[in-house]
């Protein structure tokens, strides 16, 4: 039997691609080496991290119930139960994917896939059994893996990756996070709320590299208020395990005297690398770029006819929704439709409290490109809803082209920022101006009014400021 499409990996890129292909009438199969579907995102990424962020936020919020006149005794932590709560969430979601694959009549094979040739996928099961599958097209969606630092061994107990940080057996007294990116700050937040002293060491002189500079600076201030300690412009040169912890050697990135940090747990969160191991790409001649990503053209095709790739394993932001959209697009292309991903409008969110969300260009990018823009900013301290909720940290910033008023970038720090960003994404998808956003009626009292006010502020006519 031969398939129209075999998708390798059932992360958000792969399973979404398979479902869309099946909807469009392609005979589709997936191969996944993990026991459960959903990839990094559902098993050890987005979903479990959000479950813990939610639970730990509740734990912290409960400490402020008294301010609202709710009398409860001080909350206590049952970490085991919290981790079980997280795991149930993960299972619910991975089961959901399994159900969706079935519902769409997609054959799911468990095992490690190797591309024997274009049109041929060999699946090796855990028990060593082998089978060869025939297909017209192959989509590689094998995702990414943790980036390791030379000389620093990850044991997932004392020195952990994000995966280990999602199931620490106890709350570490001192947690050192290497890397001030999204994952490091999110998981740092979880353990900070549950009681750890958290120190973040970052090689660059700023947190959240790539995000808007002003946003990053403000966010760092907010996290510092929450008890985070930052060592920026510093590199970890050594991690030595001691009795039941580790000693880190940290040097200024620019050179200078080394110092040491003591930690009970070290989280290595310095990024992720594309994962292509065992696929046999060199054999079939699929080209990688200089960063190990599979090279694709505008239609997600590799240099080998019939082999496509999407998600974390190709260029672009390593985000689940980017992988999903690419999955849909490539399925549509294979079905003879016009699949397309608009890379200019991909939102990204940091799910801390407050959240940080952005879509489009940062001020730094606009300056570098020599584009004249107007910025409109509105703080949550001036938003009625945020005020009564006492969640006034943060602001909304809208960047619009100086000549055409077209919205070029929106950056939000604040409660619900991850939900608020999407009106900006839709506006940008349709080429809207800041005035279009400002003239769209927003319900009162909502946090979204801050978005509208920031849009008004672009033309210097915010009402509540």
């Amino acid at each position, binding site marked *: 039997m031969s398939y129209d499409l075999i998708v390798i990996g059932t992360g958000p890129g792969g399973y979404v691609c398979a479902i869309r292909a099946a909807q469009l009438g392609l005979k589709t199969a997936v191969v996944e080496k993990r026991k459960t579907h959903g990839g990094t995102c559902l098993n050890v990424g987005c979903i479990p991290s959000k479950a813990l962020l939610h639970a730990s936020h509740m734990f912290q919020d409960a400490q402020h119930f008294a301010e609202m006149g709710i009398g409860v005794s001080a909350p206590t932590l049952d970490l085991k139960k919290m981790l079980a709560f997280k795991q149930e969430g993960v299972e619910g979601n991975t089961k959901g994917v399994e159900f969706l694959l079935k519902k769409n009549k997609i054959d799911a094979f468990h095992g490690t896939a190797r591309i024997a040739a274009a049109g041929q996928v060999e699946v090796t099961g855990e028990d060593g059994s082998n089978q060869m599958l025939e297909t017209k097209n192959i989509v590689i969606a094998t995702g990414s893996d943790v980036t390791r630092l030379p000389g620093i061994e990850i044991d997932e107990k004392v020195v952990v990756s994000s995966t280990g940080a999602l199931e620490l057996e106890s709350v570490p007294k001192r947690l050192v996070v290497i890397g001030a990116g999204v994952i490091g700050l999110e998981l740092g937040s979880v353990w900070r709320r549950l009681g750890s002293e958290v120190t973040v060491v970052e090689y660059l002189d700023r947190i959240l590299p790539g995000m808007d500079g002003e946003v990053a600076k403000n966010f760092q201030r907010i996290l510092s208020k929450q008890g985070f300690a930052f060592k920026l412009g510093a590199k970890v040169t050594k991690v030595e395990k001691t009795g039941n912890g580790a000693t880190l050697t940290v040097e200024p990135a620019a050179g200078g005297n080394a110092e040491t940090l003591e930690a009970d747990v070290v989280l290595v969160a310095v990024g992720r690398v594309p994962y292509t191991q065992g696929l046999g790409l060199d054999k079939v001649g699929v080209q990688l770029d200089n960063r190990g990503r599979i090279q694709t053209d505008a239609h997600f095709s590799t240099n080998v006819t019939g082999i496509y790739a999407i998600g974390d394993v190709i260029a672009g932001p390593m985000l689940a929704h980017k992988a999903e959209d690419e999955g849909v697009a490539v399925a549509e292309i294979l079905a003879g439709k016009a699949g397309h991903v608009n890379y200019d409008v991909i939102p990204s969110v940091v799910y801390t409290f407050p959240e940080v969300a952005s879509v489009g260009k940062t001020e730094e990018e606009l300056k570098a490109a020599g584009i004249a823009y107007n910025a409109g900013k509105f703080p949550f301290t001036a938003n009625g809803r945020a005020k009564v909720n006492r969640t006034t940290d943060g602001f909304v910033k809208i960047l619009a*082209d100086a*000549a*055409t*008023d*077209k919205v070029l970038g929106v950056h939000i720090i604040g409660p619900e920022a991850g939900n608020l960003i999407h009106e900006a994404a839709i506006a940008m*998808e*349709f*080429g*809207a*101006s800041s*005035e*279009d956003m400002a*003239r*769209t009626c927003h319900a009162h009292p909502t946090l979204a009014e801050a978005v509208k006010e920031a849009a008004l502020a672009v033309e210097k006519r915010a009402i509540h400021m």
Partner: protein
Amino acid sequence: MATEIRVPTLGESVSEATIGRWFKKPGDPVKADEPVLELETDKVTLEVNAPASGTLGEIVAKDGETVSPGAVLGSIVEGGAGAAPAAAPKAEAPKAAPAPAATPAPVPTAAAPGAAKDHGPAVARLAAESGVNPASVGGTGKDGRVTKGDMLAAIATGGASAPAPAPMQMRAPSAPVDAEREERVKMTKLRQTIARRLKDAQNTAAMLTTFNDVDMSAVMNLRNQYKDVFEKKHGTKLGFMGFFTKAVIQALKELPAVNAEIDGTDIVYKNYYHIGIAVGTEKGLVVPVVRDADLLSVAGIEKTIADFGRRARDGKLAIEEMQGGTFTITNGGIYGSLMSTPILNAPQSGILGMHRIEERPVVRNGQVVVRPMMYLALSYDHRIVDGKEAVTFLVRVKEALEDPARLVLDL
């Protein structure tokens, strides 16, 4: 079902057109591919044909309005002429009577596809404030929607009738008795462009003109001798333009600066010879371009030019046919000009003026003889063409025309 009539693609570098006039009124029956209106661009006037048969519905862009490629001009409603409007006037009784033309319109307006109407609030405000109809603006947003930026650009470039042209009308008012006897007419797009281009050329180039004269005896003899066989064989008349074009190309090859152009601090030498031939039409001068004229025979050039001339007068030249010239020839002689100083066709660096042929006494071998003479003028951009080159250029043209054997022998 309504079918939209849209502005066709106008060719590179042409971003807007003016509605010349509608040939049909709303309610008129139209057949598919029948011309329904005329568009004027700064290069040509072109007709827009009906995309479908039916009845002309609403006219969105009125005569004189400026529109961009892709903009909606109007719509055609399905159904024959008489059918639609017939019922309404009767039922609506006396009061509705004076405006029967309007009756077929409402349906297409309401049913027009969403995209054209779904403007954001900023576009709606600008439309209300400026009077510019978004339907006449080419949209750059998703699925061709008009964005605020598109509207601002349309308003800035005079899409708005109100604010933009004002500063140009600086003329002191005439005395009332005279004012009554003046007529104010909007310049056509073509005329406005001609005006702007000519002035730009004068403001940019260091332009001056050099003259010479040419004895046309040899060319005229050649022509008299071969014109019948030539016409029989090639189906086109043997004129002078073929000779002039060939002579010019030979001179351009020797003096490449005349075929070059200035781009910032660079000189762009063009190793191809696209010769523009100025053709007068009722609406103004147009300059179709004989592409790679150096690769054409005299017959090929004559045929191309004859065809251009015919189509220019009918307004049927395509915009691409008027782009990319490297040198221009203009013949004022057909109107009787003795001498002129043509203005460059920017960014070109040379233009040859031909004039009337007239029998004049000239001295040959110490004898006064009568010869058919023509004055030649070369206007050139002194920034890249030196006086010596310009003069040599004209001398070469003259030599080739006085002794056409040089053209054959490449001398």
